[in-house]
Structures are given as structure tokens and as C-alpha cells.
């Protein structure tokens, strides 16, 4: 007899993610992932000027604005074969890497740490013992007895006032929570400090992008940041140094707090280095080019199929890369017309809604608004884990350095020896994200140095004007975004957009089954997860959160009725 569980936070009008589970004998036997918002950016972009596309695409998703802007300008530049100036490449790279750091920090501390951290338990912690424990991990100044006492008092004040503020509705006291009170207190302290640090990473994006959340400095052909080191109205010495000092502050937090925290949590939950592997095919594209022509990259790209047996390198962004022809999207189980896999250049969005899926019932034939992307017909996982595996397997120096640092940190704290193979897991995805974040911290400063050096040589070029030919051209814009490989595919005819498809990371990961009944990565990763209490399926949230879900379809309507969101329905 199996128990069905529906985790459905969709009462916020349309949108977002729903997970359906079948649990047998305390473990997940079947899982389904569905997104409830359909996407059809091409319906809005058809007929428009390709130079305007990025302004629209950055509104697809309010959390990933920057990445959709970057992928879009790259897509049109790819169609035109248009090279951009080195300064433009580097300014984009600094924005990309700062945005990634912001995103990874927010994800770990504010969107997923509470799956592992019991806030209420922190009230029983001794700040002095917490500080002593923290001193073993790093010499971060925010780990002082005074700082930790203040956090504990603040938390106690909230509880005394009869509320837990942002921490209400957590799974406090759940049997799957394993951290000692001192570790919980340390985590709450870092949760608060991370709120400050992520703002600093975002300030870098705001300084270079003119604004956040929607940056304004991009252009097909380069960037719009006029460079004059002595002019207050342009990108000048003062702004460049402000960027540098912000990046340094963020990097200190990543290496002294974020990476050690992930190592500390991982050692307390060794079981979660076994659960959650799911689909072990991985895709990452190269990013952070170091030359104007984008022939050399600081982040390697590649494809790993079936664990680590085969590795195929992706060496660039050109349309001649073999994998570009092998990407398809299927809609057999999605609410669209058609049944066959289609290449994104031939992609279409013809909704065919076949009705609601009632909670706690068997999956209908079509059950998601998300399409099912495939590479060589197979499901593929994207994200920091894919990036780190590709780097590790190719001996990429920076990747190896931080993977080793993470493994050493776990050993130092817990005396447990991890292996790289354990990365194929729920906690492996968190560890890989922390590793990637540390890499991004180092690379953002490297690219800052490259930019300063190039500008110092007297190069102030930022823009090469695009010229659109008569006839039809096609492009693909690739970007290794915080949640993984993002690709924007455009078809341009006589200077107007004819088709436009965004294949986003969460589509790769959250997509449904396909015509061959192959489960997507979320679905596959949940199978085998323990579920101690079907009414509080914390374990399922752990695995899903480890992917950093973000369905590209944000709306932001305020629910004045304040209905109980995030409900879980359980049936037998």
C-alpha cells in the first residue's frame, strides 16, 4: 500500500512547482515534478527587433533577470557572428560572476539551509561553546561570542513575542534534523550575515548594470558602460575600486563562512551523500571568456553521461559545437500540442491544457507546463554539480582546488573522508554550489584585474554595432547560469525575430517524463529518499531544494487573503 503526497505551493494564483510522491515502506517509490505556468516568450518576441529581445527576456524571471539578458544578447550576436570588444566581455563576466555569488549565497542560507538547520534548537545553544566550535572551522570575525550572544537574544526575543518572523512554518523538531544546538546557532548567525553579504554582491551588479533587478547596460554588440577613468558620469576609477572592495568582502564570506558551513552540515548528514543522485548525465557550457572572440574560457564546458564513464568537451559557443544539434525538447507529457521531440530552432508553444491534476491521484497523461529537454534523447542534469564534475574530470585547476578544499574541510571538522563520487547526491549538489561560488568569487576578482589592465592600456572600446542581413539567420546564446546551462535560441528573418526559445536550467532539471517514460532529474532524484513523516515531507524538500528550483515564470501578486501557502496534502 503506497501513500500519495502532493507538495503544492501553488495557491499564489498561477505558477510554480508541484511535486507528487508515492511512498512505500518509508521511501519514495515514484515521483513527479510539474510546473504550472506555461511559457511562450516567442509569442511576445515574434516580429520584434532582435536588439530589444534582451529587455523583454530579462523580465521572464525576476530572480534570474541578468542571466536572461546575457543569454539573449549572446544569442543575437551568435546569429550575426558578431564579436564584442574585450571590455564588454569582461564587464559582462564581472556582472555574471557577482550575480552568481549573490544567487548561490541566497540559495544556501535563505532558501534551503532551514531544511537542515533547526532554528528553535539554536535557543538551547551556549554562545561560548558555539564560538569555540566556530574557531576550529574559520577565523571569521562574525563568529565571536558577542556576535553569537546577540543573535541568540534576538531569536529569543522573536520567540518571546510569540512569533518566529521569517522562520515560522519551518520543520522544527522534525526527527530528520540532526545538528547540535551550537551548530544551529552558528547557522542562524550566518543566515543573518548572509543577508548583508548578498546585498554587497548585488551592489556590484547594480554599479555595472546601472540598476538592479533589471540591468540596463547591455546591448547586442557589447555594453553601454562608457569608460572614462576621470569622468564621474561614466565607469571610472572610483566605481571600479568600489566594485573591487565589494567583491573582496563577498569572497571573504564565501571562503570563511559559506564553504565551511556546507562542509559542517554535510558531515552531520552523511546519509544525504547517498540519496538524491537521480539522473547522472550532466551538461555544462563554457563561460567567462577571457578574449574578445570567446575562444578561451575560465569555466570549462562538457558533457558527462552515466556518471563519469564518458566525457565530451564543449570548447566554445559556436553553432558548430556538436552538442548544439543534439538538444531537443519534448512535450509528450506536457500541456502542449504535438508529441515529437523538436530542436529549439523549430520549437513551438501551442498550449493544449487537458485539465487539472487532482492532488493525491495518479498522474494523468499530460501533467506539466514544463517541456522535457533532452540531449541525445536522454534526460540531463544541469547546475553547479554539472559544472564542477566537468571541471574536476578535466583536471581544471580552480575546480580541483576548491573541491579539495571542501573535502579537506569535512575531514577537519568531522574526521570523515569524502570522495568525489559522493557528489552525485543531494548534499553533493549543495557542496558543488559552494565550490562553484568560491570559484566565482576568485574569478570575479581575476576578471576585474583583466578589465583594469585592459582599460589601463588605453582600450575604452565597449560596442561593435550589429548589422542585420536580409534573409534568415539563426543563433544560440549560451550561458552557464547559477542554476545551470541556459540557452536562448533565435531565428531572425530580415532583421526581425521569427522564432525565439529559451531552454532554461530548471526546464532541464524540473521537466516531466518524456515519450519514452524517462523521468526528469527532479523526479529521478527523489526515488529512494526516506520519508519519516508523510505529513511533513522534509526529506523531499531537501532533495528538491538542492537543485535550487526556479521555474522561469515569476509573477508577484500580493495575496491579501494570506492563505496558507506551501500546503502539503496527503492521501492513502
Amino acid at each position, binding site marked *: 500500500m503506497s501513500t500519495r503526497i502532493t507538495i503544492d505551493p501553488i495557491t499564489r494564483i498561477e505558477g510554480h512547482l508541484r511535486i507528487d510522491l508515492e511512498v512505500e515502506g518509508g521511501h519514495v517509490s515514484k515521483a513527479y515534478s510539474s510546473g504550472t505556468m506555461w511559457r511562450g516568450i516567442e509569442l511576445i518576441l515574434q516580429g520584434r527587433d532582435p536588439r530589444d529581445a534582451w529587455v523583454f527576456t530579462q523580465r521572464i524571471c525576476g530572480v534570474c533577470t541578468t542571466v536572461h539578458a546575457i543569454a539573449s544578447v549572446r544569442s543575437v550576436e551568435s546569429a550575426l557572428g558578431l564579436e564584442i570588444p574585450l571590455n564588454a566581455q569582461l564587464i559582462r563576466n564581472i556582472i555574471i560572476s557577482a550575480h552568481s555569488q549573490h544567487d548561490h549565497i541566497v540559495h544556501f542560507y*535563505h*532558501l534551503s539551509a532551514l531544511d537542515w538547520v533547526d532554528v528553535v534548537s539554536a535557543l538551547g545553544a551556549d554562545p561560548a561553546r558555539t564560538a569555540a566550535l566556530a574557531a576550529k572551522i574559520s577565523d571569521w570575525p562574525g563568529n565571536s561570542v558577542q556576535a553569537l550572544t546577540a543573535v541568540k537574544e534576538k531569536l529569543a526575543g522573536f520567540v518571546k513575542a510569540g512569533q518566529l518572523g521569517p522562520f515560522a512554518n519551518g520543520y522544527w523538531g522534525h526527527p530528520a534534523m540532526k545538528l547540535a544546538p551550537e551548530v544551529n546557532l552558528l547557522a542562524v548567525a550566518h543566515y543573518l550575515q548572509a543577508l548583508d553579504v548578498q546585498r554587497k554582491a548585488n551592489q556590484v551588479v547594480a554599479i555595472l548594470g546601472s540598476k538592479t533587478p533589471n540591468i540596463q547596460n547591455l546591448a547586442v554588440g557589447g555594453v553601454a558602460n562608457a569608460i572614462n577613468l576621470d569622468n564621474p558620469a561614466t565607469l571610472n576609477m572610483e566605481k571600479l575600486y568600489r566594485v573591487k572592495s565589494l567583491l573582496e568582502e563577498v569572497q571573504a564570506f564565501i571562503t570563511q563562512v559559506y564553504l565551511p558551513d556546507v562542509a559542517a552540515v554535510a558531515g552531520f548528514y552523511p546519509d544525504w551523500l547517498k540519496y538524491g543522485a537521480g539522473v547522472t548525465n550532466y551538461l555544462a557550457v563554457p563561460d567567462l571568456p577571457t578574449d574578445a572572440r570567446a575562444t578561451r574560457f575560465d569555466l570549462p564546458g562538457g558533457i558527462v553521461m552515466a556518471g563519469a564513464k564518458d566525457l565530451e568537451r564543449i570548447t566554445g559557443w559556436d553553432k558548430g559545437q556538436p552538442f548544439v544539434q543534439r538538444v531537443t525538447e519534448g512535450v509528450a507529457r506536457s500541456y502542449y500540442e504535438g508529441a515529437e521531440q523538436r530542436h529549439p530552432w523549430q520549437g513551438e508553444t501551442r498550449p493544449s491544457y487537458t485539465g487539472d491534476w487532482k492532488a493525491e491521484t495518479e498522474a494523468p497523461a499530460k501533467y506539466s507546463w514544463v517541456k522535457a529537454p533532452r540531449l541525445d534523447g536522454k534526460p540531463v542534469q544541469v547546475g553547479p554539480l554539472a559544472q564542477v564534475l566537468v571541471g574536476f574530470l578535466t583536471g581544471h585547476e580552480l575546480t580541483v582546488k576548491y573541491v579539495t578544499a571542501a573535502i579537506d574541510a569535512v575531514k577537519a571538522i568531522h574526521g570523515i573522508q569524502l570522495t568525489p563520487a559522493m557528489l552525485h547526491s543531494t548534499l553533493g549538489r549543495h557542496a558543488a554550489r559552494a565550490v562553484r561560488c568560491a570559484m566565482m568569487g576568485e574569478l570575479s576578482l581575476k576578471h576585474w584585474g583583466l578589465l583594469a589592465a585592459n582599460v589601463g592600456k588605453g582600450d575604452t572600446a565597449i560596442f561593435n554595432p550589429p548589422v542585420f542581413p536580409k534573409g534568415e539567420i539563426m543563433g544560440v546564446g549560451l550561458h552557464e547560469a547559477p542554476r545551470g546551462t541556459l540557452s536562448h535560441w533565435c531565428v531572425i528573418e530580415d532583421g526581425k525575430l521569427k522564432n525565439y526559445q529559451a531552454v532554461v536550467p530548471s526546464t532541464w532539471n524540473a521537466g516531466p517524463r518524456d515519450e519514452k517514460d524517462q523521468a526528469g532529474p527532479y523526479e529521478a532524484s527523489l526515488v529512494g529518499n526516506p520519508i519519516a513523516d508523510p505529513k511533513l515531507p522534509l526529506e523531499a524538500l531537501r532533495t528538491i531544494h538542492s537543485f535550487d528550483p526556479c521555474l522561469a515564470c515569476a*509573477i508577484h*501578486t*500580493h495575496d*491579501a487573503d494570506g492563505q496558507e501557502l506551501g500546503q502539503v496534502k496527503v492521501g492513502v
Partner: protein
Amino acid sequence: MARISVIGIGNVLEGDDALGPTVVRLFEAAYAVPDDVAIIDGGTPGLDLTAYMAELEALIVVDAMKLKGGAPGELKVLDKAGILNRGPIVALSPHEPGLRESILHAEFQEVAPPVVRLIGVVAGSIDFGCRLTAPVRAALPAAVEQVRAELTALGVPVTPRRPPLTADLWWEKPQHA
């Protein structure tokens, strides 16, 4: 550094969800305010909203609203207590933390603005496409005037621009121009 911010939130590609960005852009075209008042088209920032409210004296949010029994186009103003009247959510994705969760985070950090006002307009349809439904469009002038009234109540001098500027509602431009 801004003392007061007016932030319109919502997705301009999603029908009536564009209400917030539309209202702040219309307000900015019609009225001038002092430099310490920021007018922001915030898009759909999720938890990042916390960063936009930190250390302000007052925050005015304009947003499409879901309200049981409310008619599309109906205007409703909530204060901080009204926004916080229910518990926060268990979020699956970074979009789900909304205004309520952002304020709670800011309060926990002790940087929340003492005054928060939400100008909400009940949405008709939130679906893919760059257009407002008729009742929500009809509510725009009242919402813009409500922004003015809220700022005036906070003691901010609000000056009509003569002539008014044209609001940059770029997403409403036709596709086959």
C-alpha cells in the same frame, strides 16, 4: 541615499501583474519628487525586495493583488500589520517569498522601514501577454493618485510636471511596428 522608496512590483509579461511597474512609471512621468525619494520598477525580485527596503523611513509598494471577493480593478491600501496578517510560506522556489517574507527578514535584521504601505489593485487576468485587462487599466489613474496621496501624507512635496513626460511603458509597444 533614498529615505523613501516607491516600488512597483510585478511581471510586465504577465497581463495584470504589470500593474505595479506601470503605476510607478506613470507616476514618475506625471510628478516630480525630491532626490531622497526613489521611484523603482522592481520587477519580480522575490526575497531581494529586502535589500530595497533596508534602512528606509517609509516604503510604498504598488502591486497587483489577489483578494477574495474583490472585483478586478478594486483599489485597496494595506499597512504593515495588514500585510503581515498571516504566516510566511514554505517556499519551493525563490519567487515564492513575497512582500510579507521580505518585511519579516528586514525586521529580523532590524532594518525594516517603520512605515510600509501597499497599494494593491485586484487583478483580473494574470496570463502571458503584455496588456492589462480593461478594469485594471481603468484603475491606473486612481492608483497613481494614491501614490501621490501616500507621499503627501508622509510630508513629501509632490510637484506635477508641466508638461508631463511620456511614461516609458516599453512592453506595451506593438510587436510588428
